[in-house]
Structures are given as structure tokens and as C-alpha cells.
């Protein structure tokens, strides 16, 4: 009976949705494997587009990494609200007693896991193929990657929710997202470059501050904006 049921709170509902999305992704694996394959292919293609006598691998690696993360992330985001669209599962979410924000939060969490999983394979792959000594820097690099992933996912999840309701879904998501990715990718690539060239981290402090500020501002703004993207 309904009086015994207590709807989960925002975070609880978000975790339910994230877990459900990851279960679907784990079951189908299409988006993850295509993103991964895309990442590995890009790593290889970039290698041959580059003259090793002119550019050192430590200079090239950051650019390669962040181009890959941007585009493979878009592959995952594309699918994020697509799964809700197929049989209008979104109506099921919206007619349940959970808060609207928890849908955004849950989707964003699942997307973050997706992007981080791609990063977890792509970073070692770049280190391997480009012969970049990561040494003791990998923990810091992982931190930068996580900060950037949060920014990409915060904006991308919102735009994914919007793009699925338009006539140009596949085209519109990258078109809207990429300008917003500039203040994420640029700082992340710059900080990575300093790191891989063995420069002190203090040199990248300004970049990291931009990244952190972007995360805070856009996670909050996109969560506030999300309920406005729901038809009612």
C-alpha cells in the first residue's frame, strides 16, 4: 500500500538511475566498446600523423589524450538519454515520485563512470604506444583527468537531455557541447603537458583553478537548468 512506500531521496534515486544505466551499458557494451575502439584507433592514427623527429612524445601525448577524451566522451553522452527515448522510459522516470534533479544527477554519475573507464584504458595505452614515462606522475594525472571528466560530463549530460528531443539529435550534441568543452580541455591538456615534461605542478596551478571553478559552476548551473528541459 502506498502509505508504506517512501520515495527515495535525490541522491538515493540518482544512485538507482546510475546503477540502472550502468547495468544497461554492461549488458549491451556497445557504447563502451565503440568508445574504446575509437580511442585506440585515434592513438594509432595520431602516431602516424606526427613526425617523431620534430615533436617529442611528451609534447604530443597531452593533445592526443584530450582530443580522444572529448570525442569518446561524446559517444557515451549520445547514448545517455537515448536509452530513455526508445520506449519512452523517460515517462516512467518522470511519473515516479523522485525529484527531477535526481534524473540529471544519476545520468551524470553513469556518464562519469563511462568517461573514467575510457580514460583508465586510454591513458596507459598512450603511455605505452608513445613511450611516455609516467613514473610517479600518474596519480596527479588521474586527478586532472577526473576533474576534467566532471566538467565534460556536467555540461554534456544536460545537452544530451536537450538534444534527444530535437530533430538533429546526433549532430546537435557535439555542436552545442564542443564550445563548452574548451575551458575544460585547454586547462587539462596544458596541465598534462606540464606534468609530462617534468615541470613543477605549481606552474599548472592557474589551469587547475580554472578547471575546478568550471566544475563547481557548471555542475550547479546544469543541475539547476535540468528541470527546465523537461516538458511539462
Amino acid at each position: 500500500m502506498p502509505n508504506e512506500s517512501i520515495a527515495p531521496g535525490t541522491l538515493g534515486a540518482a544512485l538507482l538511475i546510475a546503477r540502472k544505466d550502468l547495468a544497461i551499458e554492461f549488458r549491451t557494451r556497445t557504447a563502451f566498446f565503440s568508445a574504446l575502439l575509437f580511442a585506440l584507433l585515434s592513438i594509432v592514427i595520431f602516431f602516424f600523423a606526427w613526425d617523431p623527429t620534430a615533436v617529442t612524445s611528451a609534447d604530443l601525448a597531452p593533445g592526443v589524450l584530450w582530443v580522444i577524451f572529448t570525442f569518446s566522451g561524446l559517444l557515451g553522452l549520445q547514448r545517455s538519454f537515448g536509452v530513455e527515448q526508445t520506449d519512452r522510459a523517460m515517462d516512467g522516470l518522470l511519473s515516479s515520485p523522485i525529484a527531477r534533479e535526481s534524473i540529471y544527477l544519476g545520468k551524470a554519475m553513469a556518464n562519469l563512470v563511462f568517461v573514467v573507464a575510457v580514460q583508465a584504458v586510454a591513458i596507459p595505452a598512450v603511455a605505452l604506444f608513445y613511450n611516455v614515462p609516467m613514473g610517479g606522475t600518474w596519480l596527479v594525472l588521474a586527478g586532472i583527468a577526473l576533474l576534467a571528466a566532471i566538467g565534460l560530463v556536467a555540461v554534456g549530460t544536460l545537452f544530451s537531455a536537450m538534444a534527444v528531443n530535437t530533430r538533429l539529435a546526433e549532430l546537435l550534441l557535439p555542436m552545442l557541447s564542443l564550445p563548452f568543452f574548451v575551458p575544460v580541455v585547454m586547462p587539462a591538456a596544458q596541465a598534462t603537458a606540464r606534468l609530462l615534461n617534468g615541470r613543477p605542478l605549481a606552474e599548472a596551478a592557474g589551469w587547475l583553478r580554472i578547471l575546478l571553478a568550471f566544475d563547481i559552476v557548471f555542475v550547479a548551473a546544469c543541475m539547476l537548468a535540468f528541470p527546465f528541459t523537461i516538458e511539462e
Partner: protein
Amino acid sequence: MTAVADGPAVETDGLVRSFGARRAVDGVSFSLAHGECLALFGPNGAGKTTLLRVLAGLLKPTGGAARVDGMTLPGGSGIRARVGLISHHTMLYPALTPLENVEFSARLHGVPAPREAALAALRRLRVADRADVPVRSLSRGLQQRVSIARAMVHSPRLVLLDEPYTGLDELGAAALTAALGELRAAGAALMLVTHNLSEGLSLATHLALMIDGRFARHEPRAGVDERAYATSYRELVTRDA
């Protein structure tokens, strides 16, 4: 069971929902008690689906008033917790199994013991034997039954059904009718949108005919002759067109 059934399950007064200048629902007033079933007939585009979506909390009303289980629309999670929605879209995730789908919905509604509740709902719709295969491998009729189990797992006080019999075979239809009977016995009110007159007439306690966003006819089922109603329906629809 009937402790909450003091007031009507649904009560609307001049309810309006417009899209731009078009009034999809244009001043609908009715009330439906717990345990009753309203069959809603009408041609395509009459506003039946919009009315259901407003009552389900998916669309905000643009005018008039509506109360579901005593709570005023547009309400927050309280109203949505009491409503179950079934439409021609299954609202299921094809990659997940029926059990996972229904359990997910149960958890979103905060149903205690969600897994058991999900299994019970699937059993009631006679799809429990297929509970662990992906939904996408099921026939359209079986998917529809899973979708109905999804909408009933939280024992809603008001069940909104948009063409629920479409795509169901005889067994599925019988299972749905039985499940709807159980819900009504437990005090839920039903609103059933359908194109099939005899189907609606056999289930309903009340009838409404919706044309251009308004109720053109609205009366209790008792004393309505099916043939006369069919003739009247045709006349009203063609006169308006």
C-alpha cells in the same frame, strides 16, 4: 484498504491544458471515486492522452483545477507516488529483464521489499516465467504485460491506462482484466482510454466521450445500451468533423 478512500480519487473542475494556442483539454470537469472505472472514448486528437498525462503529473495544467486523491495538481512527488501510468509505449528498458525493469520502478517508488513486490506483480500478469530474459526478446504482448506490472508494482490509487489492450493476445487480455479487477477491489480508481467500445463498456462503471478537449457525453455505465451508444458516438464525432 479503504481507509484512504474518503474523498474521490480524481476530481477536476474546468481543467484546461493548452499547447500554444491549441487547447488539447478544454474545460473538463468530472469526479471518480475509488473503486470506479471511467472508460474514455473519443476520436484521435480529442485530448484523451493529454488528460491522462496531466493527471499523471507529466504535464502541468494551464487552467482549472484538478485533485488526485485529495492532492491538488500540479503536485510534487506525493501525487506521482499514487498514480500508475500505462500507455502504448512500454516505458521499459529492452536490455534489462522484466524483473529488473519492474524492480527498478518499485525502487523508484520506495516500495518495501522491491524484488518480492516485482515478482508478485509479474506473477499477477502471468509473465513470471519469463522474468529473467531480456525484455527485447519478448513478444509485443508480453512486453505490454510487463509494462502493466511496472505500473502496478507500487499499488497505485489511480491507474491511468492509454489503450492497454493494444497488442495483447487473449491470455494477456484476460490477465490484464483480472489485474484491473484486483486493483479496483483494493480501492484503486481506473481511467481507461480506448477505441474499442465493447471493451470499455464491459469494464467501466462510468463512460465519457471526449471530443475537441471536452466531455461531449458523461454518464454512469448502468442503463447505457451498447448499440445506442455506438450510434450516438458516430453521430457526435461526424457532426463535429
